[in-house]
């Protein structure tokens, strides 16, 4: 019993020593230099602010989380649908692939101000931005998955006279699922961060707005606690996507 406890402690220590070192260094530096909490509060002060009033963070965090998930699903639906369309038509594939490549190689975040101007400053714009940022990875990865079939399987379907429709439903679509889940895991944390940036720039609601307000009032403790929550939300999204990926892959293979 004690040995398992000891094991898990050393397991955690092996993984988190560097993070702990940075946090401890931060606290020591703040105390030693006697920095004002407006400039930079220590991690303890940030934690105290959060523990003192966790409910005031819950609502914005929840809203950001929901906006990120809705945008993520929207972007993946559109990206996946377009990838399937471009699989089914060589013409469409030729027309769309370079655009997919172009949009993955430019900083999509710089489009946020343009979309904000186009759609207005409200929650729909935040969702649209998250969807746009998730759209291109979904399009590119699902597209690659639709083409990367297990070796020989396509020949097998042809030999047995499978129709195009059967080939698509039974072979091509299933073989793209691992890629879809990989794109999902890579994009989920980015979706939260994109939502936070959009909320920060447009100032309507959610963690980004809360952060902007706190920073504007020089409430640095609250601002840092907000970014801590944003980080945790982003990591939680990654964890959920990873769990979903493992679950789907276990069923799939």
């Amino acid at each position, binding site marked *: 019993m004690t040995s398992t406890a000891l094991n898990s402690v050393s397991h955690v220590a092996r993984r988190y020593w560097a993070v702990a070192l940075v946090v401890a260094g931060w606290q020591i530096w703040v105390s030693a230099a006697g920095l004002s909490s407006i400039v930079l509060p220590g991690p303890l002060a940030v934690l105290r602010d959060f523990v003192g009033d966790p409910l005031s963070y819950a609502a914005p965090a929840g809203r950001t989380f929901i906006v990120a998930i809705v945008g993520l699903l929207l972007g993946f639906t559109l990206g996946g649908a377009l990838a399937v369309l471009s699989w089914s038509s060589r013409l469409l594939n030729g027309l769309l692939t370079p655009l997919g490549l172009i949009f993955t190689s430019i*900083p999509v975040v710089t489009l946020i*101000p343009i979309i904000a101007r186009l759609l207005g400053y409200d929650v729909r714009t935040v969702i649209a931005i998250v969807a746009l940022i998730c759209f291109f990875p979904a399009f590119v990865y699902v597209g690659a998955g639709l083409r990367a079939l297990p070796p020989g399987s396509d020949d097998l379907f042809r030999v047995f006279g499978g129709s195009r429709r059967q080939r698509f439903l039974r072979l091509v679509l299933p073989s793209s699922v691992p890629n879809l889940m990989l794109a999902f895991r890579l994009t989920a944390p980015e979706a939260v961060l994109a939502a936070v940036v959009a909320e920060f720039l447009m100032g309507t609601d959610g963690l980004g707005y809360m952060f902007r307000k706190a920073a504007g009032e020089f409430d640095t403790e609250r601002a840092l606690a907000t970014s801590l929550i944003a980080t945790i939300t982003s990591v939680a999204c990654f964890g959920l996507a990873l769990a979903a990926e493992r679950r789907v892959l276990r069923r799939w293979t």
Partner: protein
Amino acid sequence: MTSARSQSLMLGLIGVLVFLATWEVIGTYRLAGLTWPPLSTVLAFLSTPAKLPLFGRAAAATFTSVGIGYLCGGFGGLVLALVSHLIAPVRPGLDRLIAVIHAVPSIALAPLLIVLASADVTPPIISGLGVGYIFYVAATSGLATAGASHRDLFAVLGAGRLSTALRLDLPSALPAIASAMKLSVPIAFIGAIIGEWFGASRGLGLLIVSAMQNFQIPLLWSAVLITAVASLSMFALFSLLERLVQERMR
């Protein structure tokens, strides 16, 4: 084979042209309202001689940030990856630290950096952190790709840890590093632009955000277009390099 390739190249070219034409049509007929200018207006605005110094100064500032962030981030990521490769016990800790730093939203880092350092070093630092993450992840997985038989040969011939790392692991990590060079280009630009959104004194990011707030639509689109084209060309250059490395290493 070549005809299929040139055909897909043709289709791609047509696709891009259709995209640009759609942009022009939507802008000309105001299908998306006043905030969507036609491409020709944006290009005309960009090529006005009076605007050149403005764009020149902003672009120079942003590209300097991107360059510094890219070099420092890439080098730092590689060095950390080598350290975690050579000293196995530190690896889990370093992996977590880098994942946690990466998960901190850049809007949270930017104001901190502005207080601690200054507004003008914030863009390269945020850019460097993003680039460093990509390089670290790619290099740590690339360094582990050397084949077991090569490893045995090095061990039999009595190579030390360091010389194995430099002569076997590093060369076999080159394709992964070349991919990281390509993939971190847009990240470097995003970092610099977000960094500039927090009160840098010049740069394309500043131009973008002030144009958004002041409803200067052609200026907004022009600054975004410059950023996109710069990122795209650097990405294309590194894609070529990546292909060369992959062909050489095969």
